[in-house]
């Protein structure tokens, strides 16, 4: 879990072009400058590339916060 969060922090920093960005499980779109629908696409694609997994389209549209992304990652990576 901690491992996911630190990887995700790196990805978020790249996508939102902010090297100081900190995130937690509770972080949601409204908390981050520039997290709009376009950046959301880029974010999802970057996470998929990094972990070499695919979210379903439905899933990726419905993530409400970072915690839900981590939950989904845990499920997908533990099943492999």
């Amino acid at each position, binding site marked *: 879990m901690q491992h996911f969060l630190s990887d995700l922090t790196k990805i978020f920093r*790249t*996508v939102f*072009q902010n090297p100081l960005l900190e995130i937690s499980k509770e972080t949601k779109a409204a908390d981050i400058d520039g997290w709009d*629908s*376009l950046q959301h*696409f*880029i974010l*999802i*694609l*970057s996470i998929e590339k990094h972990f070499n997994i695919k*979210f379903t*389209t439905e899933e*990726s*549209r419905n993530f409400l916060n970072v915690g839900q992304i981590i939950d989904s990652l845990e499920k997908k990576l533990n099943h492999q």
Partner: protein
Amino acid sequence: MDFLTLRQNLTKDFSDFKRIKIALLGDSSTQFLAQSLRGYAYEYQFAFELFESEYNQVEQEISSPNSELYHFSPVYLFLFLSTQKLQKDFYKKPGDEKTTFAEDTLKKIEHLLALINAKTNTKILLPLFSEINDYSFGNFATKVEQSLIYQLKKLNFLLMEFAKKCPNLFLIDLPSLERETGDSLTRDKKLYISGDFIYHIDFFPIIAKHVCDIIAASLGKIKKCLIVDLDNTLWGGIIGEDGIERIQIGGLGIGKAFTELQQWILELKNRGIILAVCSKNDEDTAKEPFQKHQEMVLRLDDFALFLANRNSKAENIKYLKSVLNIGFDSMVFVDDSPFERNLVKSHFPEICVPELPEDPVEYLTFLQKLNLFETTSYSEEDQNRTKQYQQESQRTASQMTFSSEDEYLESLEMKCNVKPFDSFTIPRIAQLTQRSNQFNLRTIRYSESDIKSITSSDEYIALSFSLKDKFGDNGLISAVILKKETETLFLDTFIMSCRVLRRGVEFFILNQLCKIAEEKGFAYITGEYIQTSKNGLVKNLLADLGFTQKNDIWQLAVGSYMPNKTFISKD
């Protein structure tokens, strides 16, 4: 380059780069494409001023005479139409209308382009449509006119036929890009369904690269010369050690890879790229395979210059530049040795030096995918270029035998043909305005359609000059466009191919211009020098020709002009 890497370019400093107005009109989401275009521009030292239409407003922007598009007045218009939208229309059509879908769609596109051309003078970039087979007929679709893939392939072919007649329309061969990239990296259904992006996010940079390639070519930034190494580049092995029987070309070892590379290089030569050899070898040894090996594709007379010696490659390239008279930025240097590549790169950072893959069987595809030889024109003359450069080296050799410059020029028996622009010469003239960097007074680039309208306009006198001598025909080597003003003819364009420098052509041309000015009752010829980083050659041209300076304008009084001495007779 992937999208995120490319996006980092957006925060860099573009302030010294050439500003270019480009409009992007798409019938799908274009935000990632717009960012890719801006980002890729950095790699070409362009700063795009980009107009991006609202989502799916192509027809509205084009049809409404007062649209923002026309206010913006773009120099380039990228019409990003998608197969996905066509597909939707196609499925709605009854069967018999499906069979004419390609023609009907072409008509719609022709109509859009006509509207654009009526309103503004812009170069239009249009991708060919993705050739999607929906497999409703399986492979049999290739024989069924009512099938989607049949109509899409037909439409693309019709578009190519149509584009031949439209000098300001440039098609992007998108289906080839998709094929090279592979479907999984070309499309992303998630992005398409949720955001109406028709491509994978990392495919937009690839499209952007090709848009930049076309724009660069239209601005005269083109590669003119390919310099190749021999050992392990044009054949496998080392001729000096392995000998002619053991080098890999044709049937031997992985020779097929080198044969195919040579075939491609020959195609480049046939379309007008100058070839040169630059190899650390003894000349005789290096030439032997070209003369004696049955399976060599390239032969000695395919090369304008053959430099095989023990000098450093940097020295050889410097020499090559002095003979061919072209800029370093128009050269490509291909060599398997990282040492030589680095040496050339460090001496001449402007030369394009592809970092070849390790395995020679990958060379060809790798080089092809770089799309180094983009062009926006092609004329008959291109095919003869190598011969002309070879004749030039014969001239250089004969020059040594004369004691004076005049004697040499006289011996050439030069004849020059002078005539107004016509339909045969227009493509070559447009190309000259786009390619000439050095002997170019004002460096105004004209497209074929621009040259056409200048030719038919009463406001201009436009002349082309073709030169031949006892060694051969140089073809059309100069163009002059004079704009009529009261009493005065203004040198809007005065360009000359660098192949014929130092032959006194400029004096011959001025003699002709003055005669014409006098006949038509103009008292003055005026001119202007607009400095660029490359046209220092003509900085003093107007002074040398006898013009006198008044502010930034140079003037010559036709009445008191004494014809200059030349060794060129009118043909």
